[in-house]
C-alpha cells in the first residue's frame, strides 16, 4: 500500500516540479538569453509535467498484492523497458549535443514520419498475430503509390503517364490503387488459407509478383519507367496539408498524416478488441487447432486478415505518393522489415496471439525517434543500421526471457 501511494505521490510531485520549472523557463528564457540554447524545452517540460501529474492523480489504487509485485520487480521493470529507457537517454544526449532537437517542429516532424510507419505496422500486426508474416507489404506500398500517382498528373506536365486522361476526381485513383492492393491481399489470404502455406512463403511469392506487375505498369509507354512527377497539387495536399499552419508565429502546423494515422489506429484498436473478428485473430494465433475445434471459420478469417492489411498498405502507399509528390516502382522497398521490427519492439510476439495496439504505437515511436535522432546528430547511415539491428535483437531477447519465465 505504502509503495503505491509513494509512487503516486512521486509522479504527482515530480510532474508539478516539471510544470513549474517549465513555466518559469518559458518566461525567463528570453531575458536570460537562452532562446537559442534551449529552444522549446519549457513547453516540453510543461507537457511532461501535466501528463505526469495527471497520471499520478488518476492512477488506480493497487491492491496490496499488486503493490508487492510492483516493488519486487523494479529490476524487472528496468529490463522490460530497457529499449524505452535507452531511447530516453539517447534523447537527452541528443538535446545536449544539438539543442535544436528541443523544438516543437522537430517533435511534430517525428510524429509525421511515424504516421505512415504506424499505418504499415498496424497492417502487418495482423499477419504477426496469427504467427505469420507479410513480406509483400512494402511492394504493395510501391504499387499503390505508382497507380495513384500515374492518374494524378497535371494536364500541362510534359511527360504524362496517360497523356489523354481527363482530370479525374481524387477518389478514383485512390480507390483504384487501394483496390489493386486488396486484390493482392486476397491472393495472399487465399494461398495461406486454402493451401495452409506458411505466410512467409505465400507473401514472398506475392511480393515478387507485385513488384513485377508494378514494374510492367510503370514501364508502359509512354512512361517507360520514368519516375512519375508533375503531381496535381490537390492530390499532393492529401499528404502535405498542414493543419493550423501559422496558428502562431513560427508554428509549422500539424501534418494531415498525424490525424489520419490516429483515426486508423483507433479503428484497428476497435477491430482487434471489440469485434468477433478481432477475438478470432487472437484465437487463431494462440492455437489454430483449438480455434478450428471451437468452430471459428479459419479460412474466411485469414482471407479477411490479409485483405484488411493490404487496405492499410494501400492507404500508406497513396499517402507516400502524395507526400513526396511522385512515385517510382521502388517506393516502399524494405518497409515491411521496418514495420515488423517496430511491431516486435512494441511487444508483438512472432509466435502469434500476443500484441497490443498501444505497444505497436510505442514500437513505431521508439524506432522513429532513435532513427531521427541518430540522423540529427549526423551519425553515419552505416552505424544507424548497426544500431537498428542491435535494438531489434535486444528487444526480442528481452521479450523471449519474459515469456520463458511465465
Amino acid at each position, binding site marked *: 500500500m505504502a509503495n503505491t501511494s509513494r509512487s503516486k505521490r512521486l509522479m504527482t510531485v515530480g510532474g508539478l516540479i516539471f510544470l513549474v520549472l517549465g513555466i518559469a523557463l518559458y518566461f525567463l528564457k528570453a531575458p536570460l538569453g537562452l532562446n537559442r540554447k534551449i529552444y522549446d524545452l519549457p513547453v516540453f517540460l510543461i507537457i511532461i509535467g501535466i501528463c505526469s501529474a495527471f497520471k499520478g492523480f488518476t492512477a488506480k489504487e493497487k491492491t496490496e498484492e499488486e503493490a508487492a509485485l510492483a516493488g519486487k520487480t523494479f529490476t524487472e521493470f528496468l529490463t522490460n523497458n530497457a529499449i524505452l529507457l535507452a531511447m530516453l537517454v539517447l534523447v537527452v544526449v541528443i538535446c545536449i549535443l*544539438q539543442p*535544436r*532537437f528541443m*523544438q516543437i*517542429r*522537430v517533435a511534430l*516532424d517525428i510524429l509525421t*514520419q511515424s504516421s505512415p510507419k504506424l499505418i504499415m505496422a498496424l497492417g502487418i500486426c495482423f499477419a504477426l498475430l496469427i504467427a505469420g508474416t507479410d513480406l509483400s507489404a512494402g511492394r504493395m506500398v510501391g504499387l499503390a503509390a505508382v497507380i495513384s500517382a500515374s492518374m494524378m498528373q497535371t494536364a500541362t*506536365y*510534359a*511527360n504524362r503517364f496517360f497523356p489523354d486522361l481527363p482530370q479525374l476526381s481524387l477518389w478514383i485513383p485512390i480507390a483504384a490503387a487501394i483496390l489493386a492492393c486488396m486484390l493482392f491481399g486476397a491472393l495472399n489470404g487465399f494461398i495461406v488459407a486454402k493451401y495452409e502455406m506458411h505466410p512467409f512463403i505465400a507473401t514472398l511469392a506475392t511480393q515478387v509478383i507485385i513488384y513485377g506487375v508494378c*514494374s510492367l505498369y*510503370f*514501364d508502359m509507354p509512354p512512361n*517507360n*519507367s*520514368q*519516375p512519375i*512527377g*508533375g503531381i496535381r497539387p490537390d492530390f499532393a495536399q492529401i499528404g*502535405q496539408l*498542414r493543419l493550423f*499552419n501559422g496558428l502562431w508565429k513560427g508554428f*509549422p502546423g500539424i501534418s494531415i498524416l498525424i490525424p489520419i494515422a490516429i483515426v486508423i489506429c483507433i479503428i484497428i484498436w476497435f477491430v482487434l478488441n471489440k469485434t468477433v473478428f478481432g477475438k478470432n485473430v487472437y484465437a487463431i494465433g494462440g492455437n489454430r487447432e483449438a480455434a478450428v475445434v471451437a468452430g471459428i471459420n479459419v479460412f474466411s478469417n485469414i482471407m479477411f486478415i490479409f485483405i484488411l492489411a493490404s487496405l492499410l498498405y494501400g492507404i500508406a502507399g497513396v499517402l*507516400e505518393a502524395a*507526400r*513526396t*509528390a*511522385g512515385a*517510382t*516502382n*521502388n*517506393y516502399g522497398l524494405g518497409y515491411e522489415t521496418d514495420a515488423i521490427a517496430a511491431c516486435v519492439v512494441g511487444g508483438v510476439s512472432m509466435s502469434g496471439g500476443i500484441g497490443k495496439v498501444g505497444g505497436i504505437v510505442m514500437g513505431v515511436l521508439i524506432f522513429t525517434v532513435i532513427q*531521427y535522432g541518430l*540522423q*540529427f*546528430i*549526423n551519425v553515419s*547511415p552505416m552505424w544507424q543500421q548497426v544500431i537498428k539491428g542491435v535494438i531489434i535483437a535486444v528487444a526480442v531477447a528481452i521479450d523471449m526471457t519474459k515469456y520463458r519465465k511465465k
Partner: protein
Amino acid sequence: MRKVFMTALVLVLAVACCAHADEVKIGACIYRFNDAFMLRFRNAMSAESEKLGAVITIADGQDNQTTQDEQVDAFIADGVNVLIVNTVDRMASQSIIDKAKAANIPVVFINREPTPEMLATYDKAYYVGAKAEESGTETGELVASYFKAHPEADKNKDGKLQFILLKGQNGHQDMILRSKYSVEAVKNAGIEPVELASAIANWDKLEAMKIMNGFIMSIGPENIEAVIANNDEMALGAIEALKAQDYNTGNPEAYIPVVGVDANASALEAMDKGEMLGTVLNDADNQGISAVRLAAALAEGKDTGTIGYEITDGKYIWIPYQKVTRGEKQ
C-alpha cells in the same frame, strides 16, 4: 497436322533468320530501366537504330551486376555484332571487356566509364559519355553566379557560401566528380564554400527528401545558403522537404537556391514554378545517337570517322553538358 505445323514453324524461323543475317544486331544493356536519364538514352538509341536499319535489343540490368553479366552472356550466345553496355558497377567493366574480346565483338560503354586501364586492354572497347567534372563545374557556376547577383543570398553576410551537398550512389564516378568539381567551381568564382553537411541519397527523390528534412531540422533553413545535388531527382526531393517548411514556395524571403543535373521534365517544371534555380543537361539524345552510330560503324567495320562525332584518343566520344535555368537552355 502437327507435322505440317512444325515444318511451317521451322520454315518461318529459317526465313526470319536469313532475313536478318546481314543486319547489324546490337545488344544493349542498361543498368536499370526506371531511371529517367537512361530512359532518354534508351529512346534515342532505339530511334537511331531504326534510322540506321539496325536491330537493337535492350536489356534491363535491374541494378544488379550479376543479372547484367548473364544478359551479356546471352547476347553473345545470341550472336550480336556489337555490345552497348551501361554497367551497374563500373568496376565490373573488365569482365565484360574480356567477354567481348573472347567473342571478338566490339563493345561500347555508355554513361558509366571504365578506367583507362580497362579500356586499354581491348582495341575494340570504346566509351561514350559526358565528362562528369564538366557537369559539376557547371552546377557550381550556377550557384556562384546566383550568389553574386543576389546579395541577400548570403544570409549570414560572411561572404562565404554555406551549402548542403546531396550525393549519388557511393563510388559512382559522376557522384565523385560532380561533388568535387561543383565545390571547386564555387571556389574558382572567388567565393569560399563551406559545407554544412553532405549525404548520400542514391540519386533518389524519396531518400533525398528524408535526408534534407533532417538537415533542415538540425541545421535550420535560415542557415542554409544553397543545396547542390548530384542529380535532379535528389534536387526535387530536397525541394519537397523545403516546401514542407514553407520554403521555395514563391516567397523571396524564404528561398534556398537548389541545383541539380539532368534537366528532366519534373526539374524543368520546378524551375518554371520558381522552386528550383537550375540544372545541367546531360545530353542523353546525342549520347544515345553517337553510341548507336559508333556501334553500327564498328559492327560493319566502317570508318569511325564518318559518324559525325569526334573520337578522342581513339577510345572516347565526349558529349558536352548544357546549363539550363527557368526551363530554357542558356
